[in-house]
Structures are given as structure tokens and as C-alpha cells.
């Protein structure tokens, strides 16, 4: 049509064509893009660097002590001198706290996850439980300590152990506090694992006449086991590294009463300490001579906690490989 002038002149069009062609054919580096990418990468490298420095600090710091007296460091308990002090009571406390978490948080958490994923219908009560669990997972750990102090400590004051001596501040009170703390995380991870079980698997089991509980036991749980197991181990690792709730519940950082063996269950009714508490005590000591003890105790705690983490990931990979194989 005669009225329409071309939007761009032939000259402009030619120039644009040339520039696009240059762009497409050029080998010049896109600097802004590269710098942006490398800056993002450096944020990750920073985290890695922090990890390396941290591990290097504690490992080199603990080396003199480990090379000198690793045996007595593991088997000795509380003494006032840094040269003879060990972490045995901390190990014992952490062991029994772990048992408490496994015995209380795991079964309750997994059962709750089964209910939420397999039985629960969409009504206000179940929605409330769901919201509640997500919120519980975000409650600061020190608040769980207050719960433990107000509920478990007072509950066990006089029921287990000698009341006048322990005031209820016993291993089982600390263990139950940390079990309650890990409960929401266990429920959330177990729910995710159960949700990931394909529906046809359920339908097939129902189709051959299995009842709901049989479907859960024979199909859903075995299929979801790797995920449940991984999540539970991770939450156990988290619980064993917690110090704040134990301080509030009343773990001891100094002298402890009679020395029972590592596996003696009577420890449940006694006053207690745990590895994170022992480390807190070492770190809080002003003298230079306590540094190697703090580093060494941290190395032991990290071995336990990161060991659980690695074990969780490895087991998950192995389960998954088996299922596919």
C-alpha cells in the first residue's frame, strides 16, 4: 500500500543484519556473563573454604592430644586437670540420648507419617496436624529445652532416680527432650518417603485382597524404607549435636556422680552430660591448655554426627541400587 512507509530503512536493516551476524560468528567472550557465573561459583567455594578451615583447625588442634593419650581421653571422666580429663561421661550420655531418640522419636514419628499419608482424609483436624508439624520443625531448639524442663524434669523428679540428688535432671529427661525435638523432622522426612511410593503399588496390593495394614506393612514400608531410614538417621545426627536444650534441661558440665559403665541402663535415672555439653565446657574454659581437649572432643562429635550423615546417604544409594537392579 502506498501510504505505508517502511518501518526501518534498508540501511538500518542492513546494519542490524551485519551486527547480528557479527555477534553470531564472533568468538569474543561474554565477560559480564562469565564474571556473574564465577561470582556465583565463589559463593559455593566460600562455604567449602569455611568447611576446610574448620576441619583443619580442629584436626590440627586435636592432633597433639590424640597422639599422646587417645585411650585415656576416651576412658577418663571428669577431673579438674586438663592433663587427665576425658570425655567418657559425654560419650555415655550421648549414647543413651541416642537410644532415647531411637526408641521414642522413630516409632512415633514413623507411625504419625503413616497416618498422615495413608489414613488421613482432608479435614480440619488433619490439616491442623500438618501445619502444626511444619511449625514445630521451626521452633528454636532452646525452647524444646524449656519444654523438657517444665514437663520431663518435673515428671521424673522423684519417679526415676533419687529425687533429692537428681532433681529430675536425668538422662531420660534429656533424651526425651531431644526425642521430642527430632519428632517433627522424622515425621516430615518419613511422610515424604511414603508419599513417593507409587500409587499402582498400593492398588496392586489392594487388588489381590490385602487389607490396608497389610498393604502398609508389605508394600509401602519396604518401598519407603530407604527414605525413612535416611531421614531418621539425619534427625538423629542433628539431635546428638544439640547442646542448647540440654543446658536448659540441666545437663551437667562439671563433676558427675558415680561412674557407671557405658551400657549400664541405670544411667538413665542419673544426672548426665553429653558430648556437646562437654565441648561447651572445654570451649568455655579460659586457659590455653583446654584448646586441644575442645578440638579433640569436637573431632569425636563430628565423627559421630558426620558419620551418621554419610551412612544415611550411602544406605540410601545402596537401597536404591538394589531396587533398580
Amino acid at each position, binding site marked *: 500500500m502506498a501510504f505505508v512507509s517502511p518501518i526501518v530503512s534498508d540501511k538500518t536493516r542492513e546494519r542490524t543484519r551485519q551486527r547480528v551476524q557479527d555477534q553470531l560468528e564472533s568468538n569474543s567472550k561474554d565477560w559480564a*556473563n562469565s564474571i556473574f*557465573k564465577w561470582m*556465583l561459583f*565463589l*559463593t*559455593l567455594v566460600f*562455604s*567449602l573454604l*569455611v*568447611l576446610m*578451615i*574448620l576441619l583443619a*583447625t*580442629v584436626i590440627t588442634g586435636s592432633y597433639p592430644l590424640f597422639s599422646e593419650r587417645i585411650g585415656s581421653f576416651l576412658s577418663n571422666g571428669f577431673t579438674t586437670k586438663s592433663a587427665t580429663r576425658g570425655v567418657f561421661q559425654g560419650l555415655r550420655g550421648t549414647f543413651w540420648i541416642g537410644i532415647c531418640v531411637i526408641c521414642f522419636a522413630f516409632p*512415633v*514419628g514413623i*507411625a*504419625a507419617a503413616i*497416618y498422615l499419608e*495413608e489414613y488421613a482424609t482432608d479435614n480440619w483436624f*488433619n490439616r491442623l*496436624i500438618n501445619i*502444626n508439624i511444619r*511449625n*514445630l520443625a*521451626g*521452633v*528454636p531448639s*532452646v*525452647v524444646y*529445652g*524449656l*519444654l523438657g*524442663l*517444665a*514437663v520431663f524434669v518435673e515428671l521424673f523428679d522423684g519417679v526415676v532416680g533419687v529425687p533429692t540428688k537428681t532433681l529430675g535432671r536425668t538422662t531420660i529427661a534429656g533424651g526425651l527432650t531431644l526425642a521430642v525435638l527430632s519428632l*517433627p523432622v522424622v*515425621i516430615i522426612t518419613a511422610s515424604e518417603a511414603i508419599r513417593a511410593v507409587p500409587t499402582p503399588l498400593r492398588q496392586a496390593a489392594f487388588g489381590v485382597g490385602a*487389607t*490396608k*495394614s497389610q498393604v*502398609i506393612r508389605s508394600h509401602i514400608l519396604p518401598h519407603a524404607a530407604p527414605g525413612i531410614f535416611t531421614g531418621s538417621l539425619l534427625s538423629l545426627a542433628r539431635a546428638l*549435636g*544439640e*547442646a*542448647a536444650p540440654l*543446658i*536448659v534441661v*540441666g545437663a551437667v*558440665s562439671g563433676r558427675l556422680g558415680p561412674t557407671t559403665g557405658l551400657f549400664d541402663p541405670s544411667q538413665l535415672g542419673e544426672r548426665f552430660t553429653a558430648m*556437646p555439653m562437654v565441648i*561447651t565446657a572445654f*570451649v568455655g574454659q579460659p586457659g590455653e591448655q583446654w584448646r586441644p581437649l*575442645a578440638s579433640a572432643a*569436637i573431632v569425636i*562429635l*563430628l565423627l559421630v554426627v*558426620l558419620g551418621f*550423615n554419610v551412612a544415611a*546417604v550411602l544406605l540410601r544409594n545402596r537401597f536404591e541400587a538394589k531396587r533398580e537392579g
Partner: protein
Amino acid sequence: MLVDPDARILEGTSSRRAKEVAIKLVTQIAAALSLLVTIAIIGTLFYRAIDFVATLANPSEADVENAGVPLSLDLLWSNGQWAPRFTRFDIKTLVVGSLIVTAIAMMVAGPLGLGAAIYLSEYASSRARRFLKPILEVLAGIPSIVIAFFALRFISPQIVQRLFDTASQNLLAAGLGVGLLTIPLVASISEDALRSVPNSLREASAGMGARKMRTTLSVVTPAAVSGLVAAGIVGVSRAIGETMVVFLVAGGGGNSAQFTANPLEKGSTMTAAMASQASGSDNIITEIAAGSLYFVGAVLFVTTFLLNILADRIVRRYREKY
């Protein structure tokens, strides 16, 4: 109503049905237990916190005699000191301390967590992700007491004290330590948000001729912004609730802290004050001082609770969007 006699087989025996009901009931009780935990937390915290405030407002003669000083609600906002053993309950000392530590922590965790998340979600190949993601997972698995040691023995002397003239315990070093702990959380929620942005948006942007950086900054990040905000809120909630780093590094030990707005000074936070008071619990303390523990706990719980609810709402909304 089953008419066909053969169909009754499907109903099963009554003992089998009873077993089914019992199993369901057991799991239901387990789920309901989580509600009980919340009720117990709210119940104990608020019952004792209200009791504490009521005692301050309306002290009996015995309370005043025990405390040794006149009691009134003014104590919660005067003196510029938090020292329950000496009946000093200036809550703004702790709130400002918490705000300083949280702000510093988020200055560390915000950019570093977000940067790592963008790299993992937009740039890293799936091979690289397999190697890089565990860095954050291991960092997330480090107990906070270990970070506390690191902050006190490395960050404070090697970084903070070289740059500033300050004591080895200060709020800045504590904030940096808390920031390290918060990075993995911020990174993981941010990455989820970025990955939930549909690929069609990225493809459309690339089709318009935008380069990767332009696509990331102008298309993907804005599309994920609600999730990124949620990551920030959860990070703040985590930083406010962190205890051990602040307890050992901020310098509020001995259960007393002065009001300060200077991050280079010693200070205390809500969490550190609780740990500090509880760790001295073998000593004889007044009943009113014991009540202050629950009061601070209640303030902390309400703060983090509101933040978590807010973040949860935002996350749900963006999940629905895509």
C-alpha cells in the same frame, strides 16, 4: 449392605477388622501426639511467662522480700541491663542483641546462600551438582557448638580482631558464626524455589535472545521471588533461634548483659540469656528470676512462630502458582 454371601469374604473376619481399626488408631494417636507437644510448649511457656509478668505487676510482700528490690512492670524496659539474679529484666537489651546478631547473620547467609542456590539451580551441570551440593549438606550437618568453637577461636581472633579493636567476645563474631549456620538453610529453600520455576520461562527468555545472566536476573529470579523471600524469613527465624554460638561468642555469659547497639561490644540475645541462666541453675536463684526464663522463651517462641507461619504461607502460594 452385602447381599451376595460370597462377597462377605471381602469383609473379613471381625478380628481382622478389629485389628485394622486398632492399627489406624495407633497411628492416629502418634500423629495427635505432635499436637500435644505444641500444646505443652504453649501451655508451659505462657502459663509461666504470664505468671512472671503478673508477679512483676502485682508482687506479694514475699516476692519483694525475695527479690530485694521493689517490683514493677517498669523493670521490663528500664535499667539497660539484663541480669535476672539482680532483678534486672530489661528485655530490650536482649531484643536488640538478637536483632544485631540476626542482621549480621543474614548479611552473610543472604548473599552467600542465594548465590549458591542460583549457581546450583541455573548453572551447575547435574554432574557438578552431585559434587557441590554435599558441601552445603555437610555444612548443614555441623553441630552449632562446633561453629561456636570456630567463631570463638578462628573468626574472632583471625578476622574480627584484626579489623577492629575489640575483645575476643563480641556480637559481630557471633553474628558471623550464626550466618555460617544459616547459609545451608537459605541455599536449600532458595534452590527449591528457583527449580520450581518452569523451564518454559527460561526457554522463552532465551528465545527472545536474552543471555543466561539476563534470563537468570530478569526472568527466573523475579518468578521465584516469593520463595526467595520465604527463604530469607526462615533464615531469620533460624538465626534468632540459634543459641550455642551466641552463648559462647557474644559475651553474655555469667547471666548478665548491658544494653548495647554496637556490634563490636559484648552483648546477649534472647537465646543466649536463656542458656546462660539455665547453666547457672545450680545456684540459688529467686523464683522471679526463674520465671524470666519462661518469659524470654515465650517472646522467642512467638517471634519465630509468626515468622514460620508467614514463610509457610508464602511457600504454599508459590507452589500453587506453578
